[in-house]
């Protein structure tokens, strides 16, 4: 459709347009997947640079580098970029690349919407970052945007809200596309219960996104009218309720954290069987566990609000509901371990990251279970213990799964093998440094260090220094990852179609790199 003479019949065979226009006008799932992944990588580095600023200020007590207001905007924007700019687009990028190839479809079901949903993102995040140059500076009220504090932001406020709206619209369109593709474009014989778990977890994630993004959009719109239109949704002086915002926010926010981890479960469930050379243990229980986690994620939101002064019955309900999530999550971990049990394992880089994921995500899960115990949370809440918890599930969870996926499928995507030695070095430096970075934060939180503070008392000095050193090493080692990916895209040892000895699934039946339109003829699944 790039040439006027292309007819419907031969349009399967033409390659992509050339140059920049290829990327702007593309409707191809692989091109769009690449765009998403590249965008996520850029955001990961910008958000990471902000984390470096934070860790540099926290390197020792006393204020040395940035003023407190700017520090607060660093934590806020770091989180917004990492969540909405890095992890979510990376998962969408993986979905774009993989879902058509895994279910035997030629492309995503709604290619033009696919293009649109990607191209909204650069605008959304440019808007967000532009607030740093406005009077009053960037958002500094925390990524949770609690009023009344968030309403004290300067001129950038409407830009912040609009950026969130745009990112939300993009996610919703991406999700619709995933659902329509999976439900309508599976190859003959590919029943739902034969689908790879990555497709399953994404299908459920997409429903979570469609259910919760509008809730976030509503909440931030109410902030906007409170600030500019004189409404008092969250203003106690006008009859509103600041705690109401927190309820609405976390009704979005808790499912959101599962949006950030369910696709990761799918990735790990693909990689572990490949390198154990043994089928996934308990496939159907994995599907049911995913579905029950998704359901439970809607009824636990107030565990983020144990200290706001809820009635005790409310606190009990949310404590019990939260503890229940440990059950399906445990099932997943047990299934992965059983998949490894009596396998014939090798440890190439994707497997290393997958094993790292299982161990460190589980550590994050343990601290999550501790946080669920309401009376104990009265001590843990809003301390570095929480910072340690969510970084174990997000960095060594979500981010590790994305790295594992990249190493695992990159040879398929590019036709070239990545540098295995460099990959292993990247894994080991990352894993040692990330634990230096985040494990001591458990101690800091328990010893009494609140989160979101630019300066602290001297008794926290030692662990903060360890944490900062870990942070700098972890940050720097991600350059190895970027370099390895770059090198693989440019060339390298040719990959076979199957790439991995134990790989199983439709995507491995395609050539490496795969044809521009994945399956022009539907494969038959036995």
């Amino acid at each position: 459709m790039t040439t006027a003479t292309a007819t419907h019949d031969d349009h399967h065979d033409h390659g992509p347009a050339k140059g920049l226009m290829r990327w702007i006008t593309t409707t191809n799932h692989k091109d769009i997947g690449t765009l998403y992944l590249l965008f996520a990588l850029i955001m990961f580095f910008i958000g990471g640079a902000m984390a470096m600023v934070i860790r540099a200020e926290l390197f020792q007590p006393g204020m040395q580098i940035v003023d407190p207001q700017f520090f607060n905007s660093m934590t806020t924007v770091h989180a917004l970029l990492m969540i909405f700019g890095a992890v979510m687009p990376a998962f969408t990028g993986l979905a774009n690349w993989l879902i058509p190839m895994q279910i035997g479809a030629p492309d995503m079901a709604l290619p033009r919407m696919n293009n649109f949903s990607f191209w909204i993102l650069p605008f959304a995040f440019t808007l967000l970052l532009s607030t740093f140059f406005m009077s009053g500076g960037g958002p500094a009220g925390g990524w949770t945007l609690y009023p009344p504090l968030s309403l004290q932001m300067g001129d950038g406020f409407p830009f912040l809200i609009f950026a969130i709206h745009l990112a939300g619209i993009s996610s919703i369109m991406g999700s619709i596309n995933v659902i329509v593709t999976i439900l309508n474009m599976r190859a003959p014989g590919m029943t739902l219960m034969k689908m790879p778990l990555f497709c399953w977890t994404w299908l459920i994630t997409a429903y979570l996104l469609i259910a919760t993004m509008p809730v976030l959009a509503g909440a931030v719109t109410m902030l906007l009218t409170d600030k500019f239109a004189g409404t008092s949704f969250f203003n106690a002086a006008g009859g509103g309720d600041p705690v109401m915002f927190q309820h609405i926010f976390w009704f979005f926010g808790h499912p959101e954290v599962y949006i950030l981890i369910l696709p990761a479960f799918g990735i790990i469930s693909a990689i572990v069987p490949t390198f154990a050379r043994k089928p996934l243990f308990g496939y159907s229980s994995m599907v049911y566990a995913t579905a029950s986690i998704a359901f439970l994620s809607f009824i636990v939101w107030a565990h983020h609000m144990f200290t706001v002064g809820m009635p005790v019955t409310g606190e009990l309900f949310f404590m019990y509901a939260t503890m229940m999530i440990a059950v399906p999550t445990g099932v997943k971990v047990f299934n992965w371990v059983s998949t490894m049990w009596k396998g014939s394992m090798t440890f190439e880089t994707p497997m290393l990251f997958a094993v790292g994921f299982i161990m460190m995500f589980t550590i994050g899960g343990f601290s999550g279970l501790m946080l669920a115990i309401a009376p104990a949370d009265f001590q843990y809440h809003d301390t570095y213990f929480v910072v340690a918890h969510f970084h174990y599930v997000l960095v060594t969870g979500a981010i590790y799964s994305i790295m594992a996926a990249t190493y695992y499928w990159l040879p398929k995507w590019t036709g070239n093998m990545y540098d295995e030695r460099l990959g292993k070095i990247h894994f080991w430096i990352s894993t040692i440094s990330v634990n230096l970075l985040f494990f001591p934060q458990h101690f800091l939180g328990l010893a009494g260090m609140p989160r979101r503070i630019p300066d602290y008392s001297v008794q926290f000095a030692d662990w903060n220094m360890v944490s900062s050193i870990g942070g700098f090493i972890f940050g720097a080692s991600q350059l190895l990852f970027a370099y390895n990916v770059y090198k693989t895209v440019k060339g390298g040892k040719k990959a076979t179609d199957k790439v991995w000895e134990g790989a199983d699934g439709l995507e491995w039946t395609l050539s490496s790199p795969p044809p521009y339109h994945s399956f022009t003829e539907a494969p038959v699944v036995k």
Partner: protein
Amino acid sequence: MKSRIARGVLALTTGLLAGSALAEWDLLNMRKGVTSTSHEVHDLHMMILWVCVVIGIVVFGAMIYAMLKHRKSKGAVAAQFHESTTMEIIWTIIPIVILVSMAIPATKTLLAMEDVSDADMTIKVTGLQWKWKYDYVDGEGAGISFLSSLAPEHNEARLLGAGMDEAKLREKFGQTYLRDVDNPVVVPTGKKIRFLLTAADVIHSWWVPDLGWKKDAIPGFVNESWTRIDKPGVYRGKCAELCGKDHGFMPIVVVAKSPADYAAWVQAQTGAAAAEAASADKIWAADDLLAKGEQVYKTNCAACHQLTGTGVPPAFPALAGNPISNGDDPMGQITTVLNGRPGTAMAAYGPMLSDVELAAAITYVRSSWGNSGSAVQPAEIKAAR
């Protein structure tokens, strides 16, 4: 610097060696605290921690065993099993049993923590950007009221450009950098104290780890909580909810005194309050007002309007050279400071500061940094309230 890194590495190794005697336990684990609540919370914490450790050993142990034994390089041949309903049921039931056994003590502790009945006295805590206000509303000491902010020396040392590093801070403040206030909240030991928590501007959270809990202070809401402190001492905490620029700089200091010492403190406070009220009626000399005003301004206004009166426009307006700080009619400035500007960060200081303090601060603003406004007497504030 080298020794700092060496100390960091040392702390790390000692920490990794399961908190050997070298590392202070309090810096690795939750504090036991000084109330029955904090003890219960600590015990709960240790119980869940050990449960997690044991589950971790089993799961990671199995994983590591498999990784060592069932690897291709060891000649392992992959089995092909991929399902076992029995196993799935077992590892669903066992966690449920463990969770229930954790939920029972947690529920008991929670119910006890939320029971604020039969208190001996009540203190109202109000969070403000960025200080705390304490009102003793009920019981011994009722009527006492004061603001509590980060102690002034700390407030200067923590500024960007103060040139502080860890060594200097240790030398100057010992262990208490950022943990000292001008007016600590004093309470008696052995009494059940009910706290009412609220806020005037944004959400704050009142947290003293040794008491075993934190509770949010939310504008428009009054939350309740309680404590009974067993032994006299100084217990320090921090605001725990992000509340803007100086969130990291609003510490809490609770001084628990024996009932006799507490009674003496109450007497001293009421005496001081009476003297202050009496001094509001006399005419103050300009120099006395200025000297007091500088103190009041530093602790209450400088965070936003800056020590130099230049503010941080556009968020916080300059007071230096501002028409409102000049001329012969101070009423505009008095009403602004008394009533604040609703909907902005400028709070109403009428309920927080005394007539003398307000008159002093306003006089100070009106005659510093090149301003040449008229002085203000406490009586004028009294009349304007």
